[in-house]
């Protein structure tokens, strides 16, 4: 590798951390300078949702990158990307419950039950919680082999998140964006299926 593990952890990781915060900084600046358009709340909710999904896809890209490009150090960033996805998803949920629903929990529950796209988003966030909680090294050690099993929930989460995004678009809307994300997710999940199939084939 071009960079030693030590300097990767000392310089690259903090840099990636700072870059990952740029979207939220851009939103805060946009709010201050009033350039989030005529409907800033909608813009905030959509943007945080977009970034939660993007970081989820980046997280899912780490293992394929390691396998296909032999980029082992990428693994050191996986937890951080996963937690950034959770961070943006939390902002997304917070903005929705506070600004869209004004903390009217009855309305929130009704929204979840009545609208499939909200239900998908809610479930995706719900399944993210245990992953975020068990993301520490101590938890990893404590759970042992179970940790890996638990964290395979990410495959379910990405599907729920994509359905949430897709079904949110009404008949009036352009669905090319969710389709692009879905294509990327298919590629990333497909790589894993291919990997399993390949390792089985070599074993036989």
């Amino acid at each position: 590798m071009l960079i030693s593990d030590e300097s990767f952890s000392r310089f690259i990781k903090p840099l990636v951390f700072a870059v990952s915060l740029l979207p939220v900084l851009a939103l805060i600046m946009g709010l201050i300078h009033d350039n989030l358009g005529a409907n800033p709340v909608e813009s905030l909710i959509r943007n945080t949702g977009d970034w939660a999904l993007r970081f989820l896809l980046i997280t899912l890209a780490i293992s394929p990158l390691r396998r296909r490009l032999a980029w082992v150090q990428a693994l050191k960033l996986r937890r951080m990307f996963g937690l950034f996805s959770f961070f943006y998803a939390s902002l997304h949920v917070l903005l929705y419950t506070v600004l869209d629903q004004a903390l009217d929990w009855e309305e929130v529950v009704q929204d979840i039950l009545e609208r499939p796209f909200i239900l998908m988003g809610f479930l995706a966030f719900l399944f993210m919680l245990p992953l975020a909680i068990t993301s520490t090294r101590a938890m990893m050690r404590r759970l042992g082999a179970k940790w890996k099993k638990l964290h395979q929930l990410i495959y379910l989460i990405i599907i729920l998140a994509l359905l949430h995004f897709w079904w949110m678009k009404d008949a009036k809307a352009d669905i090319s964006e969710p389709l692009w994300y879905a294509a990327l997710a298919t590629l990333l999940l497909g790589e894993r299926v291919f990997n399993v199939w390949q390792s089985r084939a070599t074993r036989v």
Partner: protein
Amino acid sequence: MLIKRANDLRDHDVTDYALYQKRREFLKLLGGATLLSTSSPSRAGLFSNDNNDEITPFSDASSYNNFYEFGSSKSDPKRFAQSLKIKPWSVTVDGACAKAGTYNLEDLLGPQTIEERIYRLRCVEGWSMVIPWNGFPLANLLKRFEPSSKAKFVRFETLSDPAQMPQLKDELLPWPYVEGLRMDEAMHPLTLIATGMYGKHLPKQNGAPLRLVVPWKYGFKSIKSIVRISFVEQAPRTIWQKVAADEYGFYANVNPAVSHKRWSQKKERRLGEFFKRDTQAFNGYAEQVASLYKGMDLRVNF
């Protein structure tokens, strides 16, 4: 009721820029007076759920638009509609009427007296604005064509010119944009043909040179850049019915009790406000228009 009449504004102002400037000054005065008389000292509306209907800033009303012929994002129409040629403009009138034909815009507007109407605009997507329109009742226009007894509905069509409208090539929607009203809705005094807003010519992204404004219905009924008006016997099939009849009905009256398939219609976000406010039945115009729908099940006829 949110109607203000400014009868000293005449139709021939439409082409005269100097008079427009004067009108703008007048509107500033008018706007100032409105603010003084109706609003609380601060922008309290920002965080409270009162019924303040402050006029939406022109910059918001002219930059946050749905005009799918120019793109599906809210900022697209302002960017791409400037290529629209609105001079010369003509409107074809046909169907069940005595005076069918193709009319120049000037001939259509000639006899009309332009007045100002401040209306709430509620989009089916859950946001709303308050816009001061300049225009005249649609009824005044329709009467001139002498519709016959066979005219039960009015069908409207937007210009569909792929050379000027980039999205027409992509077949995003089953163009042309078609909307319709029942005859009594069309003749209702609240139903307006707008040729301007905020005392200015209608911006292209807002549907220049003439558009419909039906304040008690979701915004998509208020068709833009009209080129054809037809008197028909049957309810016309609208563009959104073709796309998704289960999501967008023919009547499309603002109704907090009937949810859209993907979201509740109980509340709306007034642009400029952080929290949502309650949506009113018929967008707050129930007193004037509810009688049009007496005996109808509005859950079925949404």
